[in-house]
């Protein structure tokens, strides 16, 4: 069954899009991450113009994160104070990111910039998770010395506006939280991701938040960041395809229910290794595209394909 996408200006197979959504939904249910960082490249592989894929994916994340955040709020896993401060940075970053997309598309280097940033992020996150989870599986524990804080921790503690976050049980600088939000906001606009795969490790490893509160708070702030980025993309680039977004969300919701049930059969370290391997596979495919001779030397500029 085919459906014509009004903004992408092309027909797609409904079951292919539902299937891609479901695949990413299973993964996000399994690992507790948004999965947007996998969906955008999958949509591009499926022939959706890159700019439409990224913007519509962000639109889909609004739906997915709202549904997840509501569940976590009921369980008391959302640090609203942390989320709101982080959001201030996220909204500023998202606005700057959408303008950056417009400039890059104007000079025609959006696609390649997006792919390079992707490769770097996927390598860093995938590599870090793989090493961390293999070490955890071998039973090695991080030998952190609480008496000798790292240079990074000393730097964060030296920043002004230190404040207490009760739900997370941490004390840190507002400036650091806003800065982290800004960085992730720029990436969210550029890559069409909610930023969960960057925010989550940052909240756990850099802010020291408990994993479950990090997941809940991350989903809470993603609702607002992705709302902002969706509207910015609609204004600056006219690339949000709401029909595509709803199809993806329908697939991912169903997938997420299965994923959440599968996840109880695995150990946390096994899940993280599996996720790391998937992330690294996507990275390898993107690198392959950058270094191998393209099928056609001249292509329509991204976002082309009309109304």
């Amino acid at each position, binding site marked *: 069954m085919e*459906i*014509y996408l009004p*903004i992408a200006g092309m027909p797609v197979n409904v079951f292919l899009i539902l299937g891609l959504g479901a695949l990413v939904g299973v993964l996000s249910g399994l690992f507790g991450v948004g999965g947007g960082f996998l969906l955008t490249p999958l949509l591009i592989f499926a022939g959706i113009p890159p700019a439409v894929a990224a913007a519509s994916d962000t639109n889909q994340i609004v739906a997915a994160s709202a549904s997840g955040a509501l569940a976590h709020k009921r369980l008391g896993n959302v640090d609203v104070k942390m989320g709101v401060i982080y959001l201030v940075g996220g909204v500023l970053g998202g606005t700057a990111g959408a303008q950056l997309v417009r400039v890059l598309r104007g*000079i025609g280097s959006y696609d390649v910039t997006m792919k390079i940033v992707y490769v770097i992020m996927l390598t860093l996150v995938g590599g870090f998770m793989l090493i961390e989870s293999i070490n955890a599986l071998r039973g090695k524990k991080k030998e952190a010395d609480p008496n000798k804080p790292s240079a990074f921790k000393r730097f964060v503690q030296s920043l002004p506006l230190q404040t207490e976050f009760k739900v997370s049980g941490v004390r840190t600088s507002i400036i650091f939280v806003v800065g982290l939000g800004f960085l992730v906001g720029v990436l969210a606009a550029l890559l069409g991701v909610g930023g969960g795969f960057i925010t989550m490790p940052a909240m756990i490893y850099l802010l020291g938040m408990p994993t479950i509160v990090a997941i809940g708070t991350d989903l809470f702030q993603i609702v607002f960041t992705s709302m902002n980025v969706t*509207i910015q*993309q609609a204004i600056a680039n006219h690339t949000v395809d709401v029909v595509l977004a709803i199809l993806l969300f329908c697939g991912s919701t169903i997938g997420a229910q299965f994923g959440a049930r599968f996840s109880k059969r695995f150990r946390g370290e096994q899940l993280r290794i599996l996720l790391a391997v998937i992330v690294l596979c996507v990275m390898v495919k993107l690198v392959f595209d*950058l*270094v191998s001779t393209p099928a*056609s030397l001249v*292509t329509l500029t991204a976002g082309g394909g009309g109304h």
Partner: protein
Amino acid sequence: MRIIRFLALLVGSVYLLCTPLALAAPAVTVEPNTINVGINFTGAQTTIKGAVPEGAQVIIKASAPGHPTGLSKKGRVGGLWMTVESVTVDGMPGFYQVLTSAQMNSMPPEVLKQAGVDPDFAALTGMARVTARHEEQTVVLDPAAAEEYARWLININKEKGLYSIREGAVKVSGSRFEAVLDIPAAVPRGDIRIEVIAVSPDGMVTSLEPQVLKVTSVGLVKGLGEMARTNPVAYGILAVIIALTTGLVVANLFKYLQKLIFKDEGVSAHH
């Protein structure tokens, strides 16, 4: 007598009414003559038929104006394939299909020239105006470079089914001709002009009255497409509201389903 006179008057007036209609009736019909692009559109077909002199060869040209199109050329920079030049191609049609009843090389060249058709899209490459942006300046490319980009665009449009040349696709039997035009999913909205040229065996060339095939968006495709272009702020807000509503409805739906099927408060509540 009165009845006969009345009937004669009736027949006469019907005749008078019909004659101008019969004269104005187009020699070419396009059926259907409107293509609606809706949410289930995957492409369409339309049949072009009509009358031509006995034994004539037929050339059908269907074309629609295009918009300036952006093209990116990839090149190797530091081992990576990236965009090295971005150009805008203007003056090329948005839709261009040529259907003939025989191989073009068996037809008089001056007729092909007059019709603006050839077996190799050469008529199009000459129409292209290609500009490149170098730094902040817009530069018009020389004809050789312009032709190269025009050729790439022709290939892209051929793949999308927007451009094609199909020799022998028009069937002629006696004084009737018939051809089926394929309308691909990527067809631009607007009017497609259909021109038919007949070449009689004695070499006489007749241009039949051109017809118009309308391509319009309907329903959701029209509503969303127009809104995204003319009122992007409202469109963005609508997209967000639709997503939020869907998300919250689905979250509550699954909570309800879990209660119903598993008779519990949901999986996570117990862990």
